[in-house]
């Protein structure tokens, strides 16, 4: 698995020579009794990067973040922040700050004192505290709310206080654990943009935990997709979407159609596959992805890469089973002759002819868009 990652990702040197790492994990494992929550994690998070840990609930994202923050000790492996080994360093001596999932605002302190808390601990002079807290308030648009208690703020405002309280300390790394999870959709979208802008302006390294793939895709420079405590793929959003390493990533990031079958022939990057339903599929195997003739393989094609018509490396007849209007596009479910079901997206343009349920259609896609997946 890890082999494949390193092969597919452009080598570190290629992406901006000696980019210093803000956080490094080397073989980090966390066990709770017998349960392995984080399994042999090795990765580097670069300075100034917006880095996301993405994965389904329970895959070890929070545990990873808590190890960086210092609330949990790795069972094995080494963790460095800004080049310094962190073993034995308590949370209050680490150059990181956390935005908690529950915000964890101090209920007995007002907004000002919540934000000033870290500065007071660092013995920052009073005048500077006042100045920096009001700057932080302005940054997250909370000016005028300084004397409010957290209970008298809306969810969105509380979220901003949590953010300001962490940012005001100018940490090397800001850790965010599903910070927008409790907000409604509209506010979440707004805050995504604000957070991204803020990160860009301040140049602070963000380590962002989310189970929302769309959120991770829109905000991150790089994403580590996790499952069962292991990184499945570490890549840019575009690469994750276009070149998912395995079936899990392909299914988790965006929507996809997958087929399984036996490899009939391999000619360089070109692979021919025969499914149980009898489909002959032309597919593409990225460099380094080992495909053996006669073995079983899985391929994936994105719904928007499938066209109606007969022109393409793969073209099959089928019947429309279901049509869902999605606004900018329409989703069709097409059942192929062999019984396989395929989801197809089509942009809604005025001239496009409508197909209804029950219509006989042809669907086609190119081999280049039909990716052979790793296991």
């Amino acid at each position, binding site marked *: 698995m890890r082999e494949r990652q390193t092969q597919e990702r452009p080598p570190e040197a290629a992406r901006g020579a000696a980019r210093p790492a803000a956080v490094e994990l080397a073989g980090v494992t966390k066990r709770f009794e017998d349960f392995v929550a984080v399994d042999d994690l090795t990765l580097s998070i670069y300075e100034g990067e917006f880095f996301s840990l993405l994965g389904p609930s329970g895959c070890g994202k929070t545990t990873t973040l808590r190890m960086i923050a210092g*609330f949990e000790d790795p069972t094995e492996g080494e963790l460095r922040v800004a080049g310094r080994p962190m073993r034995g360093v308590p*949370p*209050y001596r680490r150059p990181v*700050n*956390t935005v908690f999932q529950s915000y*964890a605002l*101090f209920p*007995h302190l007002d907004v000002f004192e919540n934000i000033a808390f870290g500065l007071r601990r660092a013995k920052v002079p009073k005048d500077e505290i006042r100045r920096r807290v009001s700057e932080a308030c302005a940054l997250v648009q909370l000016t005028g709310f300084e004397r409010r208690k957290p209970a008298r703020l809306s969810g969105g405002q509380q979220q901003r206080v949590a953010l300001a309280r*962490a940012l005001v*300390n100018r940490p090397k790394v800001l850790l965010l654990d599903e910070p927008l999870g409790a907000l409604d959709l509209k506010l979440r979208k707004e805050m995504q943009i604000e957070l991204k802008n803020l990160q860009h302006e301040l140049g602070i390294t963000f380590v962002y935990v989310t189970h929302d793939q769309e959120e991770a895709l829109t905000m991150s420079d790089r994403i580590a997709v996790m499952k069962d405590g292991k990184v499945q793929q570490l890549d840019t959003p575009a690469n994750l979407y276009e070149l998912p390493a395995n079936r899990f990533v392909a299914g988790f990031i965006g929507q996809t159609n997958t087929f399984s079958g036996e490899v009939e022939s391999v000619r360089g990057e070109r692979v021919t596959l025969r499914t149980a339903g009898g489909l002959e599929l032309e597919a593409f195997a990225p460099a380094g992805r080992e495909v053996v003739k006669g073995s079983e393989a899985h391929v994936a094609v994105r719904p928007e890469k499938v066209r109606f018509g007969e022109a393409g490396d793969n073209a099959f007849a089928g019947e429309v089973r279901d049509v869902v209007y999605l606004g900018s596009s329409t989703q069709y479910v097409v059942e192929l002759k062999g019984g396989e079901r395929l989801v197809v997206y089509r942009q809604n343009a005025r001239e496009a002819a409508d197909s209804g349920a029950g219509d006989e259609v042809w669907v086609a896609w190119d081999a280049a868009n039909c990716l052979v997946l790793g296991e």
Partner: protein
Amino acid sequence: MVRGAPILKRVGSLPDWALLLFAGLVYLFLYAPIFVLMFFSFNSARSTQVWEGFSLRWYAELFRDQSVLDAFYTSMVVGVTATAISTVIGTLAALALARHSFRGKTLADSTIYAATVMPEIVVGVSLLAFFVAVQFQLGITTIIIAHVAFCISFVTIVVRARLSGMDRSLEEAAMDLGADPPTTFMKITLPLILPGVMAGALLAFTLSFDDFVITFFVAGAGASTLPLKIYSMIKFGVSPVINALSTVLLVATLVCILGGSRFFSRKEE
């Protein structure tokens, strides 16, 4: 069960006035003796049965009686000292039980609850036996030790309830922002559990101030608290002075309990 159902139904179909009457009788049974007692503490005559007129003479007499004042003083000293000690120990115990896991935690946990339902007479006898065995001179010190022993459980339970309602991540957030454990405790944990600590302290004081059975065993000859004093006075017959003293004790207790419940239910604004 099945047979009970028609009876329940019959009770349920009683007219409203009958239910009110029942409720009224229950309250009368509970509180009438106390009100009568308080009422006759203001009687101008010596009788505790015949009302002759309003007067504070029994209160005046009460506060002239040096042995009563001594008992009051002893009760206060015992109450304040036992409260202070048991509040500190009880709070620390609550923190340990809520925040840490250690060997024997389950045992420690259940003993704390068991201590609150332990028959007082058993506690009193065993403490007495203990003090005698180690040849500890009975007196105000043994009263304080005994009171601390039974107050700790109550403080722990009250503080723990408060702690369990407190988000663990608040303390983590404080540490994340650079506060070491002592600072985290002083700035975050303590202010947030303070209502619970105060409620626990008031409860401890009330329990200590009222206690008769355990105190009776461990007081020895030298020291007498207010409840012991009342008991010894009543041996010479009921007098309005006892009514007055009981009223004082009742009011003091009520003030503590009401203060405590107000503290405990206080919400963060």
